[in-house]
């Protein structure tokens, strides 16, 4: 990794930057508390620096004290969206539900690093005091032991098992139950008490495996989990990368225009913008995972492709076995494109969740969602995400917009 990776903590950023999630996050799987690199990334991404608004300390501060001994951070997310179902007394046009402002995450983190090879992190999501999904953990805490890069990492505590891709948009259907779109099978901030081993012997191969309790999984899949007391998870991921260098033709700073082109706008001014690196890369992921307990099992497969300063494409599929009577298949494809600036990305996503009650004549229940929107980082630490969504269930269709806010440091 050269300069600070662009923008904020999202799976697609790992693809665009060519850095694993652990580059910016304390937890090797990504998500949650950021390390100094992650904080620095958040600090230096934004259309308008804080120093231009007279708050220079926001541009230069550090979340760590005593060297790196104690680090603090937080994720604060909220959404303005139409919550609920359309209302009507006949088939056809219906009334949209009202807008509701929902705090989704108000989660401070504290991390302690007593020695170089040990991280201890704790956090509590205050937003769950008001509203929480079934199975959503209100707190997370873990101790992570990490030696030299050629040795495994061990994480123990209240943690999210590593399976599939840990997205940050909790309205995605990849972990949803199509029969109940607002009640996901695996809720946001899902976590269980357990332990996990992570091993990345070479830069392009990572393996994670763990064992967990099932207290929160039973909130959403009690019948399937049954009397089982433990859950297992395993994920294998290969991340081949093609690196190309220079700022000339074919390099990442080449915008594809020939400087000798005779056009109406004069020559390119390559001095105008520095893309922050002389080399670029095509970054890929290919992986699969399994997570299960008792008669519950979730198998994920995913593929990601990203290019420096351009964007990424992520495709993921999940097969869910929720006991002997329910089988689900969920799919998602998401394209993110840098819209001219590091602080502005355009996203489009299509997804579908189906759930079938086996051995009945009812057929599958299907929910589809299409989302178009932007990620805008107006200032450091702040992300605003306006989106237009089309949600289609077996019973209704809703075309509506949402606005998410995310403060992260």
């Amino acid at each position, binding site marked *: 990794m050269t300069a600070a990776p662009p923008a904020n903590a999202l799976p697609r950023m790992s693809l665009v930057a060519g850095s694993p999630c652990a580059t910016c996050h304390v937890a090797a799987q990504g998500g949650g508390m950021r390390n100094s690199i992650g904080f620095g990334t958040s600090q230096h991404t934004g259309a308008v620096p804080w120093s231009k608004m007279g708050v220079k300390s926001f541009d230069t501060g550090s979340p760590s004290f005593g060297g790196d001994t104690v680090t603090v951070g937080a994720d604060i997310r909220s959404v303005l969206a139409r919550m609920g179902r359309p209302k009507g007394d006949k*088939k056809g046009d219906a009334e*949209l539900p009202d807008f509701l402002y929902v705090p989704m995450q108000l989660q401070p983190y504290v991390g302690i690093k007593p020695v170089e090879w040990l991280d201890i992190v704790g956090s509590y999501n205050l937003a769950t005091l008001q509203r929480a999904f079934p199975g959503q953990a209100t707190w997370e805490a873990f101790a992570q032991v990490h030696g030299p890069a050629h040795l495994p990492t061990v994480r123990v505590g209240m943690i999210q098992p590593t399976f599939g891709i840990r997205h940050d948009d909790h309205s995605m259907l990849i972990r949803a139950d199509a029969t109940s779109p607002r009640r996901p099978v695996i809720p946001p901030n899902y976590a269980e008490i357990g332990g996990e081993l992570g091993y990345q012997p070479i830069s392009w191969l990572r393996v994670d495996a763990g064992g967990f309790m099932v207290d929160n999984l039973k909130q959403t899949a009690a019948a399937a989990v049954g009397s089982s007391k433990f859950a297992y998870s395993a994920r294998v991921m290969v991340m081949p990368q093609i690196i190309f260098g220079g700022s000339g033709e074919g390099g990442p700073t080449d915008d594809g225009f020939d400087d000798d082109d005779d056009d109406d706008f004069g020559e390119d001014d390559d001095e105008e913008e520095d893309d922050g690196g002389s080399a670029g890369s095509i970054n890929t992921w290919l992986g699969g995972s399994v997570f299960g307990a008792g008669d519950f099992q979730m198998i994920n497969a995913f593929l990601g492709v990203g290019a420096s300063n351009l964007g990424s494409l992520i495709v993921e599929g999940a097969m869910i076995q929720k006991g002997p009577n329910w089988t689900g298949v969920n799919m998602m494809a998401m394209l993110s494109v840098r819209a001219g600036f590091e602080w502005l990305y355009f996203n489009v996503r299509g997804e579908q969740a189906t759930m079938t*009650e086996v051995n*009945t004549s009812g057929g599958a229940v299907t929910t589809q969602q299409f989302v178009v929107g932007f990620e805008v980082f107006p200032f450091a630490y702040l992300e605003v995400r*306006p989106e*237009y969504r089309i949600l289609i269930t077996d019973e209704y*269709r809703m*075309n509506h917009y949402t606005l998410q806010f995310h403060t992260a440091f």
Partner: protein
Amino acid sequence: MKKSIARSEAASENGAAVVANPRTPAESSAGHVSRRTFLEQVGVGGCALGAAILVGCESAELLTDPNAGLTKDAPFNLTTHPGLKTVPGGTATLNAEGLKLFLLRKDEFTVLAYEEKCPHQACPFAQLGVWDDKKKQLVCNCHGSRFEVDGSYVDGSVSGDWANATAAKTWKVTFDKATGEGVVKAG
């Protein structure tokens, strides 16, 4: 470079402001915007315009008739719906005329039929509906909505911003304990 100089001279002839060095960041001179700046401005402007258009395009549509009923009786029995053998509290789903019904064994002699989706937030009773035998109420474990035997919503069973539950639709059911056969009546 030669072509750029030629354009600058032409602009000068027209009386327009001339940029002495076309490669400087000063781009505001007429007719001299870099490709990158133009694309960035188009990108942001296009995004803003698209957003403005989409904001005005909210709508909703019900794809099914909320008043749909059964035009004829729908039969069931304990062989085809073995979940109803559990007394009390056994459950099963019955598909009839495109409707999905939630059957609930209230006691030895009685089977209840509700619409399968909870009227609160459409959570599926098939997965989340349970019978509270003490209070003789159907409970939706999604958010706690409670319904009486006749489908009426128990006030206050769900609170908060989404507390918009209404009564659950029900159908009359005849059930013969001896034969294990029943019929959901049309309606």
